């Protein structure tokens, strides 16, 4: 095998075991040996390029790689603190086997041989019976192209990654509407936008690009409007701050749409060219095709051509399509342009600013003014680029004209159970403005856009146990038959993704997996395998319950969830609940691949991907998880990981990155392919590929030529190029979906049409939430518990200097935020008699917690909030006994429930978006009350300490 580069960087010393400043290096490197290595940061999932300086084999300094397309040389607080993560006391040091009761923290150090034997035997047995009894759930690991493929080849449908926590409803809303998404698949046009609308973003995955972008907007004097209940971070510097009431953005966007329609200021030209606004929707109430798009015999969608006064293929060029009116189809049924349905809905008085103002907490006049500003910028200040381009129909355009209203949205929208539709509403607003991938608007990041509809449905078992799934476990159901349900219409998957409970759960329901595994018991689950996810703590709704379920036993004393494997780099709260712990390397100690098959570093300027290279050599008995997974797959003889004789194909992840081919010429990395390294996207594996990446600073990008930069859904040159690189299966134009026909298909099923219908208990629900045009409904939890007992909205925000639970073991970052507060409006505080630093009780329908209060003005009057994931369980993360993270830091999760308050006698639904299964973290409502003055100076609930107690072989021998 020649794929492995000989050393980290040519011409410099190979990596030494290292530690940050302050400790002595035992290596024999000459006194002043300095070297530099380029790799990718992983203090969060933003994928910035870093330049790592080593001195005498020790980390000296990490700075941003100035040539890197993501961060252009800048580095955030977390990235700059990477040096302290490399010496964190929380690092795991050896494989562990549980010896005490689960959760007690008692382990025995074992060898990798033994660890591999245990897991391989276990998985082999599962695979021989029912592969789906392995549930593999991974966090924000950036190896999903590998882990997903492993699951597929293993044959389990029970695989998911963190998207279901974050923003799966936005990912889905975007993919089903515009073939891209705000969530990691799109970005604002920082260069040309004049008005930037930011919905519910605190930090986001694009941490550094957003900050860089905001500064560019500022430099140009563009206006930034932030819709957010809380004014911190990006909202702090917004030119206008709109303190929207949580969960009501959909209404607010409808009111904006209402104003645009009312004023007749929308881009109809854009609508008929690039969206399905003119597609005729069958109007046949009660019929099996009611609400679907009318098609001709060839299957192409129909429009009404006003020029000829007849029906025409909607994709024909030169027609003058009607956007209003009612037309008769050849079969006599009536049909109406999708746009007409839309206009009618949002022009209704119920969406006038005046009608929504109170619920949104935003004055009607403000909404109207914002609508006017949007109109002004979109239509009176268009961006016109002197850049010819050719559309998919072959027409040459001399200019690129854009509506410089850019929108970005994240979890303020998605962490609500109405997020799918709210996000769709935003995409509809963009389409009405003609502000999708045009100069100055929101743009796709390569490799998006993808065709809609056109997603590959989720894979399902194909044949005997042990056979691979017929497709990747996560996919896009487009019709009822794509769901993973049994004959009764009940879920096949453990987390009930792709079932009628969450049909478009394209990333799975991570937050439900422990509860569902507990519910289902050993018949359905044998091994819960967690990678890089703190499932028993901050990523759990209701951590106390999750922990209880993880350690629950049946009457025979057997664990209800038979086996738990955790692959983590640090001593997180979840590690204590593992039966087997596979200790991972840290990000400076391994190869990684930020692949186009997952979520790469591509931008609107073109595709790109990146690698991580080992810069330090671990001095602990740890192994890169990807290496381990590939070895397991090889030992199990999985297809694509072992040859026909069952011999492993790859000896390491680096080897796999270079040689694995998903399809002919398509591999984990798109750059420097082919024998000569000149091919991109598609090409023979190149044994020198990693070396080429290293020489290039750890990444590869392809800059699209200027004529391909916009209108990608209908840009001939772009579509052809994307086809060649295998980003899309055909170079046909991608029609933006103002009206979502797939949703209507699910709705029809709920009305009893077709062979695949929801079980009766779910019919009304599916009918309601699968509206082909965006709707708004109060967040489910609030609707279900609307008795006024919990009058305040409670949300969390990402702190910029912390990444979930893995900042607290960093000696620098924890100085910034070792504990958190519950923030509330000064007026509200005055009303409740609460002052700064008072301890307060935060009560919700599912629990209570104690936190210290801090008052502020820049917050919605009825909203309280805190920084996410600061509170830690005593004993975890290598922290000492009285760490503030244990004593005063708290998790809001303690008062969130993974179940909605059910109707009496009915099984409770999960606390999720009913369309996509997105965890509804921010639907929470609470009540606040000052604690008695003599209350102890510590948070509640405080779970007992369970630090890892590791028996080393030497000790056990003695």
């Amino acid at each position: 095998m020649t794929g492995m580069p000989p050393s980290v960087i040519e011409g410099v010393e190979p990596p030494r075991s290292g530690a940050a400043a302050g400790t002595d290096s035992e290596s024999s490197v000459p006194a002043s040996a300095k070297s530099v290595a380029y790799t990718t940061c992983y203090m969060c999932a933003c994928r910035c390029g870093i330049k790592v300086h080593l001195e005498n084999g020790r980390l000296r300094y990490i700075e941003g790689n100035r040539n890197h397309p993501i961060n252009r040389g800048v580095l955030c607080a977390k990235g700059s603190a990477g040096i302290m993560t490399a010496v964190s006391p929380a690092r795991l040091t050896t494989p562990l086997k549980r010896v005490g009761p689960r959760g007690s923290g008692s382990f025995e150090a074992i060898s990798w041989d033994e660890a591999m034997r245990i897991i391989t035997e276990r998985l082999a047995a599962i695979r021989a019976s029912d592969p789906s009894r392995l549930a593999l759930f991974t966090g924000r690991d950036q190896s999903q192209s590998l882990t997903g493929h492993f699951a597929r080849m293993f044959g389990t449908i029970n695989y998911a990654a963190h998207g279901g926590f974050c923003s799966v409803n936005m990912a889905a809303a975007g993919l089903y509407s515009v073939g891209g998404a705000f969530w990691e698949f799109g970005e604002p046009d920082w260069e040309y936008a004049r008005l930037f609308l930011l919905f519910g973003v605190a930090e986001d995955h694009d941490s550094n690009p957003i900050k860089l972008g905001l500064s560019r907007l500022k430099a140009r004097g563009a206006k930034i409007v932030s819709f957010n209940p809380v004014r911190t971070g990006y909202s702090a510097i917004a030119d206008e701050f709109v303190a929207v009431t949580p969960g009501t953005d959909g209404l607010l966007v409808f009111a904006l749409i209402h104003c645009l329609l009312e004023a007749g200021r929308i881009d109809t030209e854009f609508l008929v060219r690039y969206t399905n606004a003119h597609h005729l929707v069958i109007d046949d109430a009660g019929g099996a095709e009611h609400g679907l798009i009318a098609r001709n015999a060839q299957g192409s969608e129909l429009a009404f051509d006003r020029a000829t006064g007849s029906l025409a293929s909607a994709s024909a060029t030169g027609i003058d399509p009607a956007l209003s009116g009612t037309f008769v189809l050849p079969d006599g049924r009536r049909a109406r342009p999708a746009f007409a349905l839309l206009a009618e809905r949002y022009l209704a008085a119920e969406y006038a600013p005046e009608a929504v103002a109170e619920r949104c907490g935003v004055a009607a006049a403000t909404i109207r003014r914002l609508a006017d500003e949007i109109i002004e910028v979109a239509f009176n200040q268009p961006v016109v680029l002197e850049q010819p381009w050719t559309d998919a129909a072959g027409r040459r355009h001399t200019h690129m004209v854009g509506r410089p209203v850019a929108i970005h949205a994240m979890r303020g929208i998605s962490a609500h159970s109405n997020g799918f539709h709210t996000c769709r509403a935003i995409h509809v607003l963009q389409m009405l403005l003609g502000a999708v991938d045009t100069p100055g608007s929101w743009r796709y990041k390569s490799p998006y856009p993808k065709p809609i509809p056109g997603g590959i449905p989720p894979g399902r078992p194909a044949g005997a146990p042990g056979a691979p799934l017929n497709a990747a476990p996560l996919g896009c159901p487009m019709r009822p038959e794509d769901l993973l349900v049994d004959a009764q219409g009940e879920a096949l998957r453990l987390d009930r993704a792709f079932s009628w409970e969450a049909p478009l759960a394209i990333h799975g329901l991570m937050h439900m997996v422990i509860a569902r595994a507990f519910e289902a018991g050993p018949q359905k689950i044998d091994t819960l395998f967690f990678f890089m996810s703190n499932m028993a703590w901050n990523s759990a709704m209701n951590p106390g319950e999750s922990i209880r379920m993880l350690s629950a036993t049946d009457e025979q004393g057997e664990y209800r969830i038979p086996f738990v494997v955790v692959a983590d780099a640090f001593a997180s709260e979840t590690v204590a609940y593992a039966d087997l712990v596979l200790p991972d390397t840290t990000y400076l100690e391994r190869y990684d691949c930020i692949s186009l098959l997952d979520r790469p570093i591509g931008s609107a300027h073109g595709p790109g991907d990146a690698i991580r290279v080992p810069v330090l050599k671990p001095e602990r008995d740890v192994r890169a998880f990807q290496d381990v997974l590939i070895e397991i797959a090889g030992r199990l003889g999985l297809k694509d990981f072992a040859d026909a004789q069952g011999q492993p194909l790859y000896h390491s992840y680096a080897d796999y990155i270079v040689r694995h081919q998903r399809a002919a010429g398509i591999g984990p990395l798109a750059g420097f392919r082919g024998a000569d390294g000149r091919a991109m996207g598609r090409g023979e594996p190149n044994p020198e590929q990693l070396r080429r990446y290293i020489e290039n600073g750890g990444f590869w990008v392809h800059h699209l030529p200027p004529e391909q930069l916009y209108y990608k859904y209908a840009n001939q040159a772009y579509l052809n190029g994307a086809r060649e690189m295998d980003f899309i299966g055909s170079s046909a134009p991608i029609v933006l979906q103002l009206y979502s026909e797939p949703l209507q298909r699910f709705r029809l099923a709920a009305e009893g049409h077709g062979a695949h219908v929801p079980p009766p208990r779910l019919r009304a629900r599916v009918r309601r939430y699968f509206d082909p045009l965006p709707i708004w409904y109060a967040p489910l939890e609030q609707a279900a518990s609307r008795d006024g007992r919990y009058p305040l909205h409670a949300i969390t925000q990402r702190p910029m200097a912390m990444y979930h639970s893995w900042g607290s073991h960093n000696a620098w970052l924890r100085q910034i935020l070792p504990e958190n507060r519950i923030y509330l409006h000064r007026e509200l505080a005055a009303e409740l008699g609460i002052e700064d630093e008072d301890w307060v009780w935060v009560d919700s329908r599912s629990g209570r917690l104690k936190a210290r209060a801090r008052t502020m003005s820049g917050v919605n009057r009825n909203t309280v909030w805190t920084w996410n994931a600061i509170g830690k369980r005593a004993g975890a993360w290598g922290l000492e006994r009285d760490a503030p993270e244990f004593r005063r830091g708290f998790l809001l999760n303690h008062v969130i429930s993974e179940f909605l308050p059910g109707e009496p006698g009915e099984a409770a639904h999960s606390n999720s978006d009913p369309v996509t299964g997105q965890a509804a973290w921010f639907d929470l409502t609470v009540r606040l009350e000052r604690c008695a003055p003599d209350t102890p100076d510590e948070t509640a609930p405080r779970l007992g300490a369970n630090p890892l107690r590791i028996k080393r072989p030497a000790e056990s021998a003695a």
Partner: protein
Amino acid sequence: MKPAASVLLLTTLTGFAYGLLTWLGLYVAAGAPPAARLLVLAGVGVGLILATLGLIASTLHLGRKERAWRAFSQWRSSWLSREGLAAVLTYPIALAFAWAQYRAPGSPAARSLGVVTALASLGTVYCTAMIYASLKPIRQWHNRHTAPDYLIYALYSGATLFALLHTLAFGTAALAATLAALGALCALIAKLAYWRHVDAQSPIASLASAIGLPKGTAARPLDAPHFTENFILREMGFQVARRHAAKLRRIALVVAFALPLIFSLLARLGTFPLASSALAVACAALGLLTERWLFFAQATHVSALYYGRAV
């Protein structure tokens, strides 16, 4: 400001020391009786020992004690450097004075050295005072009271000590006790005037101006950079509760000034002169330490504005 024990000891002890040396110098210059030969000798000894203890205490405050000698180099700009030099210079002067007075009591040399000793002593106290008085960020120090007050407290505390030594030597406190009583009165008035002054002072800056916003902009802290106390807060952000401070002020008034005043008068009147003058010294010492504690604890530093504290 954090009332560090080392600085409290330094300023209080050197106050006694240099005050005493000043009075001894003036005593001789004014024609002390030859019988006071031993008194002056012992007095200078006591003064220098106290000064030395004070200076040693102050070096305890240093992060790098072994480098303390470097502190003498910047007399052209630094009052701390000047204080150090003045203190060091005072040693040979005071010793020469004591020696001259011992060898030839009342000689012109002794008398003029007495004047020089007094000047050097007061100069040292003045330098100490100016260290504080020159610090613009601290309004309670940077004002016209600080320097004269330090001189007054030094003269006053020195006088109580002088009275005690005098009583020890001659059995009566005589004029020294009068000086001590007068000193206590002056010091009391000076302290009251000082408190009146600082209590009426308006803050020297607002949070708005500290963060560069237009004057008058309302500004409130939201989050501090770090949750735990840091050097700035420990050193500059020290806060003492109003009620606690008011109580301490009353204690200081009584113990530092009122009681020594009474004891000095008693000593002057010959009522248990030794006990009375000893009690005057003891009270002055305790009281002045309290006063000095307050001088620090109630001083606010502009930088605390950044943490939302009143200054």
